[in-house]
């Protein structure tokens, strides 16, 4: 019984990782590198968008991603009674 529950916990954890790491990949490798030229044609204030993602935006998203992960995992730990 316990084993099954732990498996479920791990699966849920892996799901979170997949979602969060996709965003991680998107903002840095896709927006900041692969699509940088296309995004650079959009301009917000003095920033070309691709350049902004590479030097600013990706870093802000990284910070947010970790704090979202902390919240999700704390909730998950509670749900599975693994937070004591």
């Amino acid at each position: 019984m316990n084993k099954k529950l732990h498996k479920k916990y791990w699966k849920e954890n892996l799901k979170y990782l997949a979602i969060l790491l996709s965003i991680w990949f998107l903002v840095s490798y896709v927006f900041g590198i692969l699509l940088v030229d296309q995004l650079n044609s959009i301009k917000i204030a003095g920033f070309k968008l691709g350049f902004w993602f590479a030097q600013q935006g990706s870093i802000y998203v990284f910070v947010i991603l970790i704090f979202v992960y902390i919240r999700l995992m704390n909730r998950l730990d509670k749900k599975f009674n693994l937070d004591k």
Partner: protein
Amino acid sequence: MDIKTWTWILVGITFTLYIGIAIWTRASSTGDFYVAGKGVHPIANGLATAADWMSAASFISMAGLISFNGYDGSVYLMGWTGGYVLLALLLAPYLRKFGKFTVPDFIGDRYYSNVARVVAVLCALIVSFTYVAGQMRGVGLVFSRFLEVEIDTGVLIGMFIVLFYAVLGGMKGITYTQVAQYCVLIFAFMVPAIFISIQMTGNPIPQLGFGSSGSDGVFLLDKLDGLHRELGFHEYTSGSKSKLDVFFITAALMIGTAGLPHVIVRFFTVKKVSDARKSAGWALLFIAILYTTAPAIAVFARTNMIQTVSNKKYNELPEWFSKWEKTSLITFEDKNEDGRVQYLADPLKNELIIDQDITVLANPEIAHLPNWVIALVAAGGLAAALSTAAGLLLVISSSISHDIIKKIINPNISENGELIAARLSAVVAVIIAGWFGINPPDFVAATVALAFGLAAASFFPAIILGIFYKRMNKEGAITGMVIGILLMLYYMMKFKFDWFGGGSKEDWWLGISPEGFGTVAMLVNFTISIIISSFTPKPPLAVQEIVDNIRLPNDAGDSALH
């Protein structure tokens, strides 16, 4: 007061503070010495990790690298921050749950083999020594430029300070000194940045300032792109490197960050798994403050510099120019003898060579900031270099006293004996690091950046597979690590030091630079590990239970272990 007096005062105050903290937080057990007794608060650990992580290179050189490379410099910004997402999500919580002292501990236990442990120790030593030599050199350079003492004397002073708090306090002393060092270095980095941002754009937040316009109403970045085009450089906001290479370098830096033993070990120092996650979040937040400011400084400094010197009469240049000429960080040669400075992309016509380190070091002077602000930069640079050096020295000394002496040579060593061994190895490590700082081998500068490639190629796959792939066995992991690090060493020696027949840019495999090759070596490591493990026996049941156990955040599964 002049700059030098201010510098002596600020350096004196901060050094006294570090020594004071070291005396107050002496280590009394091996647990204190290796992992600060596992009682560090997540925010304190976040601060310490940030200082540990941000080296002399982050503080002194990175803004300059970006300033001179424009968009191409983004690899450092994304690479050295994105790794923390990997650390927080894929490594920190599980390694904390595993709950031993060092990275080789994990590798040795998870792969039930002392061979694996020794391979991991060797990888940790290679990575840490290449990295620490650069830090001691950085300490010497800051001393020599700001206080006009010999570089070697500067290295010796730095050695003495690190020796004092690393040997006395171990991880516990280092942690709390690093907290203080983070405060010093971030203050020293932000104050000039805010001043200059206000000066150039009227916006006190540098992160927004470099996207605003100057007093002439032109956006700063547009102006800089224009100046670059005029002088023949490639546009600041677009790159000159190939996309593939930028991709691979960014990946190597990210994964390398997540594989650096002195960073990983910081997550062993907190109380529980949820704290390990939290401190990764805080660490990245504190790091991001500097990393999002650096590109702003880069733009301010680049624009300022070009406007101050380009096509100006040499004998009418401001005072800082001749001062930094003396340190040969700036060299000027009047090729067409018109008495003016021509700063151009064309190497035949260009008359000015500027070292990128000047961006941070001279920026406050170029912007006419008060003397105490200029002196702050010296204290900040020292804090950055010392904190990283101490973290690395701890990894080196615990590798020797714990992983080699306690785990392999003499398992019966007493707690006290091991503590003495740890302190002695720290002394030896400081002396070796200092020797490298005084007699820097030519390859130091080249290898610091490559330490990331080495970490990515060796540790990262072994740790990730150890957590996420239960079937991974010792045969796979050891072969993977050995081939990964050898492949990386080979590529780096071939294309950086001209060994094995050398080669130029045209010979790079798929056009990937040595800096980006860590990603390739890591992929090779992963592939080989998985293939070999599928042909060799499964890991023993007890090891599979370790894996089940580290995947859970609390001790629910522990009964199976004991």
